[in-house]
């Protein structure tokens, strides 16, 4: 039991340091005014293989930062590859779940465009998957 706990702790630390790294990269991309690149960085590898809520929250703060930095939604979709659609949809629902007004406004705006692009199937994939939550 002790070894299992130790391994998990080590994993958590590794995950947290990865998230910190990602956060720094996103900040620098945002400073260069590359919001779409920042969003891609945020979404990449962000499906955490852990159930730990602290990691998920830390990761969400980073992704939230990138989502809120998107000003032109149409321009974002013209350069965002479809492979990001399913994971982006998951974060949009997390954003909507916060109930925070500006976050919800932004998420709804992106949600509308994303649904137009990726269809209802994308929504179903994000809602049906209860194992790989974000």
């Amino acid at each position, binding site marked *: 039991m002790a070894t299992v706990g130790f391994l998990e702790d080590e994993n958590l630390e590794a995950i947290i340091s990865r998230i910190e790294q990602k956060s720094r990269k996103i900040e620098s991309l945002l400073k260069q005014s590359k919001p779409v690149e920042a969003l891609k960085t945020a979404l990449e590898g962000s499906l955490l293989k852990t159930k730990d809520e602290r990691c998920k929250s830390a990761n969400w703060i980073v992704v939230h930062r990138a989502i809120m930095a998107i000003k032109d939604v149409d321009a974002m979709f013209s350069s965002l*590859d*479809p492979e990001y*659609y399913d994971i982006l949809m998951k974060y949009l629902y997390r954003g909507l779940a916060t109930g925070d007004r500006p976050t919800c406004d932004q998420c709804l705006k992106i949600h*509308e465009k994303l649904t137009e692009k*990726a269809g*209802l*199937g994308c929504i179903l994939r994000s809602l*049906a998957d209860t194992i790989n939550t974000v």
Partner: protein
Amino acid sequence: MAAVAIHQFAQCITCHAWSPDQSMVAFCPNNHEVHIYKLFGEKWERVHLLQKHDQIVSGIDWSIRSNKIVTVSHDRNSYVWNQEASEWVPTLVILRLNRAALCVQWSPKENKFAVGSGAKTVCICYYEKENNWWVSKLIRKKHNSSVTSVAWHPNNILLATTSTDGKCRVFSTFIKGVDSRESGASSSSNLKFGEQIAQLDLSFTWAFGVSWSPSGNTLAYAGHNSMIYFIEDVGSSPSAQNVALRDLPLRDILFVSEKLVIGVGFDCNPMVFTADETGLWSFVKFLDEKKIAPSSSKYGSQFSEAFGKLYGQSKPAINSDTVESSRPRGGAHENCISCIVPLRKPGDTIVRRFSTSGLDGKVVIWELDNSI
């Protein structure tokens, strides 16, 4: 290609099956009865009414060679119906379940049938001549949830199941005295009854509808997350492909040929999937041509280079408010399609015709033209 015949039989149909010569159709109008209709000239007329179950009939299968009907119901029982003179005589099959039976299928040789149930078990039933009795043998403790669909491999031994635990499994159903050692492929006939050959872990949510290709080389099943999964070489070295749908999930699927699959479900319109020469599966189109399918309605999640190509195309300019609401209207089906059945005459190897039924109470017959 389109629907060649549409008939409204009831308010809602849970399942249906065709007689061997396809002159009659048996269906359950969402109650405890099974109605058998026959086509006289232009008009369908009810010729038989099978009343033995107490609750909703969830599965019907009509064997092609032996002309027997098997029905299963939420009342946890199954009946095998034999036609004697002009009457259908039922034989009770005690499945030994404590939850509803959900689906049924005759094995290719028609000496066994498989029942999936809400009791997390699969029943394999076979006839014992000595006792004049159908015996039910259970595959227990393999599924973690209800078994939503069963499909027989053409070798009469292997059975694929889908479950609401999200997994698709393949079992051996070898029964001593019923199956001979030579009957199946050499590798599969050495397996004991109930042995699990494979467990496919691709879906994270409910799985519905499973089907084998005519040769038994490819297996396909659908997930409630709007995905369809194709698995080649299940026995030896399985390789899987996922195809993500743009639209609502599938409920049932059917292999028309080795390279062509029809999927039906909540989108009220059958979808066509094909494999190209390299074996790459993709969505092709909706079968009901009244619905204009957007050209960008597909992408394979494993093949990111295909993603961009397919998704990048813009949708036809439709007002976004009308896209979803206008979707199911005007097609052959007006509600979720829950069942697809091949129309196959004895000895036929290729399916060109099949029928679908669903919550709108219609049975629709489709015919494939040569374009696919």
